[in-house]
């Protein structure tokens, strides 16, 4: 019902915007439809209004999935003053189409280059900042700490240790890695981490921005490492038939021991019956020695559409959104990590580990399907899935991906 009201509100605001915008009013469009994000937004807006009573906030909350289509419509037809979106290449089409406003000055005048340092690169296109990040979460390997203890396995720090641990688990009748690839994207996490660890962040970014062919031997090297896990059957069988949540019960029942996932998986694991002590978190191990450790941390952001009516006040809002206090409070509700490195540390065990890991990260990738062009991402992840089923077909798969790359990045 609230959504219905929000849309009615949108229609109404469209009428108002058409005639004259109120001085001191900003319209925010966002996709915080799930309960926790919705609460976080409500608190954020209330706190902002308390601090800036002269500015009225009008918030249109969209359905999370529908928003991806909606933003394409409202940015051209009826731009709000602030819009939620994602960092990295996901914002590139809108920046390219001139639909987002340059907010470099907001960063410069609020010291954000230092405080939001970890996300600076992913908010920059052509040397210009296009938005403000407010939350992200870590990816890494979640494992059954109790099974590791039983089998006498220490959390692996290197590739060799990871292989040894996998072999040991497999011998004990436990599938080392849970995964469900029906929705494709879980394969992206594996590719990201293997590429980040084998070739490093710079190469990963060059590849995902289409500057390196998929037939490059360095890409092939990534799949050779991956094959060392696929070949011996270290992933769940039938992974292509199930979603990521379907694989969780295998872990809960002790039939699988590790899961490369985003932090949101912890909640599902706990719902499935695992206690906090049974779950461990580790950084993805080193592969090529000496390569600085970069991480996947999908970042959510706010932007000012170039067609916004009240850009002055929208910038005030972005500056508030970037502040340590606002980010700490919002992320406590979201159960995610503040981007601002001055923000208070979260109390949750896994978030704390993630905060430390990401604050010290060499750089952050956004995730394969956000860093790569959408069409490339789809073809790429299909290729990864096919590789996990038919590892011997890798040359053919890479040739196909190269063909798509050549087409997409003309």
């Amino acid at each position: 019902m609230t959504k219905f009201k929000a849309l009615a509100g949108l229609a109404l605001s469209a009428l108002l915007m058409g005639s004259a915008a109120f001085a001191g009013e900003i319209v925010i469009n966002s996709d915080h439809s799930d309960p926790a994000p919705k609460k976080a937004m409500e608190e954020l807006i209330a706190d902002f209004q308390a601090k800036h009573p002269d500015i009225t906030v009008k918030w249109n909350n969209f359905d999370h999935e529908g928003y991806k289509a909606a933003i394409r419509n409202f940015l051209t037809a009826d731009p709000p003053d602030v819009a939620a979106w994602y960092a990295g290449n996901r914002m590139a089409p809108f920046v390219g189409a001139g639909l987002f406003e340059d907010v470099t000055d907001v960063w410069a005048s609020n010291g954000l280059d230092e405080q939001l340092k970890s996300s600076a690169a992913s908010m920059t296109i052509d040397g210009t900042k296009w938005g403000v990040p407010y939350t992200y979460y870590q990816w890494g390997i979640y494992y059954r700490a109790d099974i590791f203890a039983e089998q006498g396995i220490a959390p692996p720090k290197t590739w060799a240790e990871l292989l040894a641990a996998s072999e040991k688990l497999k011998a004990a009748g436990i599938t080392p890695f849970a995964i469900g690839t029906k929705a494709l994207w879980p394969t992206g996490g594996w590719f990201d981490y293997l590429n980040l660890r084998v070739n490093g962040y710079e190469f990963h970014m060059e590849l995902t921005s289409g500057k390196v062919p998929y037939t490059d031997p360095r890409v092939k090297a990534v799949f050779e490492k991956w094959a060392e896990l696929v070949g011996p059957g270290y992933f769940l069988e039938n992974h292509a038939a199930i979603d990521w949540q379907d694989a969780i019960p295998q872990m809960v029942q002790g039939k699988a021991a590790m899961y490369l996932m985003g932090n949101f998986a912890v909640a599902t694991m706990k719902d499935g019956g695992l206690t906090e002590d049974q779950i461990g978190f580790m950084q993805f191990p080193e592969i090529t020695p000496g390569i600085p450790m970069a991480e996947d941390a999908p970042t959510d952001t706010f932007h000012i559409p170039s067609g916004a009516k009240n850009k002055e006040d929208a910038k005030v809002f972005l500056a508030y959104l970037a502040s340590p206090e606002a980010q700490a409070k919002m992320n406590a509700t979201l159960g995610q990590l503040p981007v601002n490195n001055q923000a208070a540390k979260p109390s949750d065990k896994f978030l704390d580990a993630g905060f430390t890991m990401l604050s010290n990260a060499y750089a952050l990738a956004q995730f394969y399907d956000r860093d790569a062009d959408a069409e490339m991402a789809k073809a790429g992840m299909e290729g990864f899935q096919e590789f996990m089923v038919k590892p011997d077909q890798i040359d053919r798969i890479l040739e196909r991906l190269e063909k798509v790359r050549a087409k997409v990045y003309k």
Partner: protein
Amino acid sequence: MFPTPIQKASPAARIGYQVLLPVALMIWLIPLIGVAVTSLRPASDLAAGNYFGIPSGLAFENYAAVFRDSPIGWYILNSFKVTVPTVIGAVALSCLTGFALAVYGFRANLWVFFAFVAGNFIPFQILMVPVRDMTLRAGMYDTTLGLVLFHIAFQTGFCTLFMRNFIKGLPFALIESARVEGVSEWRIFRHIVLPLMRPAIAALSVLVFTFVWNDYFWATVLVQGQHAMPVTAGLYSLNGQWVAAWHLVSAGSIVAALPPVLMFFLMQRHFIAGLTLGATKG
């Protein structure tokens, strides 16, 4: 009659047939029965791996949970908001077009008729981008009205084919004699032909109801948020949330399938008459 009536066969064959009927039906409906049973299985059964055994109890709770924890009731309401106006609109328009094409021998008659018929068979995809764009620009994107207008227009093709053939089968002499009497064309339609079209209207209403209720493609193309989403698209998005919760998916499926199923059983004769139009000579 073909095949030879079983009554003329040997007693053994007769009994065999009577036994085979329910067995064949059970096999035919296995996917349905499986889902129906799953929809009544307590969640604890599924968690414990009891997928096929006797359910430990009948969990009508699953149905309650579907209505309580998901907007499926709202989706169903949306489906009615799309389906009912579409039925009225498409049937009304096609009464007019069908009458025009059946009664008047103007030159373009057959070509107009074939355009309606052919349009009925084209792939939806060829309409998708322009119709979505048009709906968007008219401000009807993401509304039930946008869906209704498209469905009316598209279903009019099929309905016109149906109505035109039906009216062709009526005695033309009725119309002729009325014209001789000087009755206006509108009154001929309204007072002479329309009352005779009741069975066709009933059959078409049931069919269009089912077609539109079950539409999924346009529901995903012309609607994005849950406030206007019909139950087919809604069920799909719920399926995304209920991963691994098959007792809920099953219950939701049954709920979504129920209205057209009821419609079918209540109006069976009309339904089949509509569907099999043209399957016999005439």
